């Protein structure tokens, strides 16, 4: 038996990616435990909590990523900026 994580073939970028998602989810859980926020209606078609908005922001970001990689040749750091801005927009006004 080999209990190392070698078989998961981690790389630095994916570790940062997965790590930041896990940290954000944990941070949001702590935030909502300390001060729960109610559902509200923003520009999204349904009433949402911050958790819903975060999920929707990340899911739509995945599609932005696919469109970026599939249709364009632009560098990825611009995409990263766009996606971070988009998630923030959804979180604040969604």
């Amino acid at each position, binding site marked *: 038996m080999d209990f190392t994580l070698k078989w*998961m073939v981690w790389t630095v970028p994916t570790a940062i990616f997965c790590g930041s998602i896990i940290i954000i989810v944990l941070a949001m*859980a702590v935030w909502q435990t300390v001060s*729960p926020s109610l559902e509200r209606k923003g520009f999204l078609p349904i009433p949402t*909590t911050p*958790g*819903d908005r975060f*999920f929707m922001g990340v899911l739509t970001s995945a599609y932005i990523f696919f469109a970026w990689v599939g249709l364009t040749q632009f560098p990825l750091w611009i995409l990263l900026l766009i996606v971070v801005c988009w998630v923030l927009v959804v979180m604040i006004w969604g």
Partner: protein
Amino acid sequence: MKGKKKFVGLIIYFILLVIPIYWMLNMSLRSNADILASFSLYPENLTFMNYRAIFTDPSWYMGYVNAILYVVLNTVISLGVALPAAYAFSRYQFVGDKQMFFWLLTNRMAPAAVFALPFFQLYSTFGLLDTHIAVALAHCLFNVPLAVWILEGFMSGVPREIDETAFIDGYSFPKFFITIFIPLIRAGVGVTAFFCFMFSWVELLLARTLTVTDAKPISAIMTRTISATGLDYGLLAAAGILTIVPGAAVIWFVRNHMAKGFALGRV
């Protein structure tokens, strides 16, 4: 007159439903040479040699034992973890409850093919490859969310005054849950067990990926034999018929609960 038309239509549908199964039964009762030599609507030279071949060869019949072992194991695990969780979802409000519920459901909707790839690695890392527990755990991926979903529906149908009264009477949570609450929803537990059994029993891709020989289920052995023996239709049909038997037996036992479970719309 109208009722009669309905009845005739239904009978025709039932006949269409049963014919493909009948055809396999027909094939399973003929020898392969006989099948290829002549076309016949019923077995003219009735033979049980295909069934005998299966019941005398451990590499065949152990497939049934393996499948039943991991299906039962999976049903027990799924129910064991889903019962308290479904109670929490039906009774309490907590941080992330809605997100958690949706996340569970996404696993029910995720393509097994997505997970088949790393499952092999994961379970070999833990030394679980080719064991019944590995398949049982893997099937938890879609059966646990389903069990939580169905059970939550049944539990929410039980008035909450019952819980409140029991707690006022000084029952501890485990005692209340096991001696009062679970008996109240035993129909729901039965229906859930039925669906866990069903989905674990019919799944092939994960079961095939995670087993080599020791825990290989019958359905995977069947596909392997198609290529190995150059299509022995009689044997294949007999094995197929035998995979239908446990499911049919389970339906027969739960037929009265089934309508109730479906009526809850939780499946």
